[in-house]
């Protein structure tokens, strides 16, 4: 029981104070990749803690650690009468472990399937109304400056004629480099688990923080890629042009959690070295991964 309580406490700690300090921390803005990696590590830590807590209840007396619980559970499953030795607490524990794992898997899968079909629908129409410029870029006749990426098999970068007409060539190149960054980095897959969490568990502060922050950090990552190929100045000008030329209805303006374009402009305006992220991210991830391993093996 102590193991289960301790692991639940660890999960709460990760979901509460740890995620809150990560969400409000300033360092992720400078090292967005490391930030995304840390969000992933936190999510995995919470998942393993909760599953570990459930499993540790199943065979507390036989094996007081979560890893021992997995071993004894496996041997009882392969025995002549599987799960026969489980008492009430053990059954609850097993059901918690199973449900947490199954729920995580199912919500991510359902969201992935829904997004895939919506993207396929979008691409089908795009194939008929859009004009292929080159490679993956499709031009659509539309007065507002607009660019977006449709992820998935045969992913497309869409640009409106409003953008090609009102932006100069360097700004268009920067926008394309940003979207190309999303494509090459497989950002849609990175965002997927957090987006599913945010949609299905909106009432959980962790889910809200994580989905909002990861979505924003991914934009920073794509911005950093665009800087490498097109330069900071072009990207900054493109973002500013978005602000000054867009005249959309207010209903469109109220995005989820407000617009983050201001944050991106501010970030690009204050020159910070985008370096050494690898070391930071590896250290952070190693630390949390060690904690995950500790959860499983030391109970």
């Amino acid at each position, binding site marked *: 029981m102590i193991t289960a309580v301790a692991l639940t406490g660890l999960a709460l700690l990760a979901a509460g104070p740890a995620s809150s300090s990560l969400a409000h921390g300033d360092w992720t803005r400078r090292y967005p990749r490391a930030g995304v990696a840390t969000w992933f590590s936190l999510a995995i830590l919470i998942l393993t803690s909760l599953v570990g807590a459930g499993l540790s209840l199943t065979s507390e007396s036989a094996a007081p650690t979560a890893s021992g619980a997995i071993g004894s559970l496996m041997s009882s499953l392969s025995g002549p009468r599987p799960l026969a030795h489980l008492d009430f607490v053990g059954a609850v524990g097993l059901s918690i472990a199973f449900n947490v794992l199954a729920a995580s898997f199912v919500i991510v899968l359902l969201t992935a399937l829904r997004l895939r079909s919506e993207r396929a629908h979008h691409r089908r129409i795009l194939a008929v109304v859009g004009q292929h410029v080159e490679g993956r870029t499709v031009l659509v006749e539309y007065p507002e400056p607009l660019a*977006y990426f449709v992820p998935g098999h045969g992913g497309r970068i869409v640009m409106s004629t409003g953008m090609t007409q009102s932006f100069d060539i360097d700004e268009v190149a920067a926008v394309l480099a940003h979207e190309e960054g999303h494509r090459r980095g497989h950002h849609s897959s990175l965002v997927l688990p957090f987006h599913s969490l945010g*949609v299905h568990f909106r009432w959980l502060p962790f889910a809200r923080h994580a989905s909002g922050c990861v979505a924003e950090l991914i934009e920073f990552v794509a911005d950093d890629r665009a800087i490498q190929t097109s330069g900071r100045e072009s990207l900054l000008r493109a973002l500013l042009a*978005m602000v000054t030329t867009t005249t959309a209805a207010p209903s469109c303006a109220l995005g989820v959690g407000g617009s983050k374009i*201001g944050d991106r402009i501010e970030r690009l305006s204050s020159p910070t070295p985008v370096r050494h992220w690898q070391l930071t991210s590896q250290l952070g991830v190693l630390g949390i991964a060690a904690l995950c391993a500790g959860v499983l093996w030391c109970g």
Partner: protein
Amino acid sequence: MKRGRMGQMGDLERAVMNKLWATDEALSVRQIAEGFPDHAYTTILTVCDRLTKKNFVTRRLEGRSHVYRPRASQEEYVAHLMDVALDGSSDRAAALVRFANVVDDDEAAILRAALRRRSK
């Protein structure tokens, strides 16, 4: 090889749709095929069949041949795509990755002011 063929098919579908959008009348495969002398009648027939299955056109029997008409105008299709792309508040838009969210007038004014201060 397969990819190349599919790409060609896509181009042809777009071209056929453009021809149908350019007129108010429903066109028969023969009428459509007149615009594509490089392609066989059967190819155009296949394209029309595919467009029907994809729900881009409706098919109706007129006399002894089928005539095709677009389900919606090109502008309506574009408007539909852009609605999804511009609507940052709906979960539907999560299928896409926007370059930047649209900002309202107040926010734009604040950003412009901040930038003027910076450039001074």
